């Protein structure tokens, strides 16, 4: 299905409108954890898809997940460009909406998001990237491995170590609070 849409979009850019909505939420979540601020997230997500539209003719479909991986690659570059020399302090009011749960206070969710994001950013870059791609990008380990030019075992290792560290950091926060 995705392959068909991609090929169609390469021939007729209008078909991109049927393609991109399938990935917006994942790219959004990934970028949000990278940059924190809602406005920045929206700018970067927009730029990512506009750039994908512009370059889709040069994209080569290489199996399931390849298009999604390509989008994450673009998002990664756009984040890098965007972050040139910027400070990273984000006010809680600027945090994106967290998936709505009627039984949870959005403010509490946002505070927790800020904690997790802060701890994520303290991890080594590779571990951070693997966790983001796994949990928010919905990529399988093999797809992450292909994207980051790693082998699958290394991805599992980064994932495991990163999550352990993250768990410890969050536990410390809970103990202290």
């Amino acid at each position, binding site marked *: 299905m995705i392959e068909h849409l991609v090929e169609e979009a390469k021939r007729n850019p209008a078909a*991109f409108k049927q393609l991109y909505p399938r990935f917006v939420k994942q790219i959004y979540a990934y970028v*949000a954890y990278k940059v924190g601020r809602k406005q920045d997230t929206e700018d970067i997500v927009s730029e990512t898809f506009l750039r994908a*539209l512009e370059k889709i003719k040069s994209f080569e479909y290489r199996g399931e997940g390849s298009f999604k991986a390509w989008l994450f*690659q673009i998002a990664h570059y756009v984040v890098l460009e965007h972050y040139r020399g910027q400070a990273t302090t984000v006010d809680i009011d600027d945090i*994106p*909406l967290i*998936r709505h749960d009627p039984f949870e206070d959005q403010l509490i969710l946002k505070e927790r998001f800020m904690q997790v994001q802060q701890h994520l950013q303290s991890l080594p870059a590779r571990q951070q990237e693997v966790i983001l791609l796994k*949990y928010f990008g919905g990529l399988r380990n093999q797809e992450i491995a292909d994207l980051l030019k790693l082998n699958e075992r290394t991805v599992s290792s980064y994932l495991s170590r990163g999550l352990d560290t993250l768990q410890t950091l969050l536990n410390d926060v*809970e103990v202290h609070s």
Partner: protein
Amino acid sequence: MTNIHDELNRLTPEPDLDFLSRLDQQIQARIEQEATYSMITMQDNIILLFDVKRILLLAGIFLMVLLSVLLLLTISPSPEDDLSTSLIQTTPTVAAQDSCEVEPQSGWIVHIVTEDDTVETISQRYAVDSQELLDANCLSELEAGTQLFVPATVDYVELVPRRPISVGSTINDALLDTAYFPLPPDNAIPEVLGYAGTVTLKDLPANRPIDPQDVGFTSMEINGQTFTAEEGNVLLYWFGISEYKQDTLLYFEGTIQQTPVYELEDGTGYSPPSQPLARATAQARVVYNDEFKIVLEASIEDAILLTSFRLSNDVLGWTTKQQLTLSAEEISLNAEKLVSEVEFKLRVSVSSCLEGIERFLSCDSLPQDYIIRATVVGVMQPETNAEAETQVTVILWSLDAEVLKWALENNAEIYTVE
């Protein structure tokens, strides 16, 4: 204690509807913009089609007026004149159906019918059913000069500058999307030579300034392979420098990877987590002694408040020499010209992650089977033997610098592939 898996799944940021709506509008606008641009490019005419519907309306009005005028002119006293024939001869044979309204689909562009066009050729070219094409344009047949809407399937002109050499999978993902621009001075070289390792600025100011300022001038020897003078001459020849001598300058522009440390008012340092990129100009100086060396001298104009910088090997590339066994055909192809622009793909098979590679890249990220695109810069001392194959020394240049360098240092197997 909170389970980290549950926590990550719970804390998923989501776009709001307002943003999704705006994004959709942006995408739509870009699609229309590309379609319009494509049409302009395709026709090689500057046709401003910012509002397709408005143009279409105006065209319709114009057509109606034209038809009316022609109708008046054609109704002559001569009874033998065939009205319908006159109309067909003087206007586009667009059989506009009264009940049909042209409503171009999103992403369709305007194609101006040429004399060679037929419904079939246009349908084929734009991958659309011929009846669908006619229906969408309220037409029954075509005539040269007619405008009609077609799906935008023509190739777009690439607006984004690209690097002259395809890097493919590279060791430095962060720099993949940076463009490479050779400097334009008169004696500039078309490509960049040499490999630059980590360069540490000397004579850093004791107190790092808070305001941006030029960090000045530095130089260091490029951490590349040393060539003999003869081989160095071949390299320079390849870079278009025919009269070379001591201190010949090679100009280039590269990308630097900054590790800035901003000094805060309280005296502490602050280093942003990202790795911002900046442009820097630099020049390399040829040094002849018994050996050929290139010394990098970089004037860092854009880099401010740097503690260190690294000229991207991804941009600079690296040059080396390697023994290759080539076929007689390949030898004649390269040796005759001496300086070849033929690209060779090389496959480097690396069996294990040896000590030392960590200096350049993580062992985990080193592919076991790596395709390198390298250019044969020069072929040295070809010694043809009686066999069909000949052993030669070729000088290679590759953008996959660190992998190539490491692979060669560790005697990785290199051979040409199709």
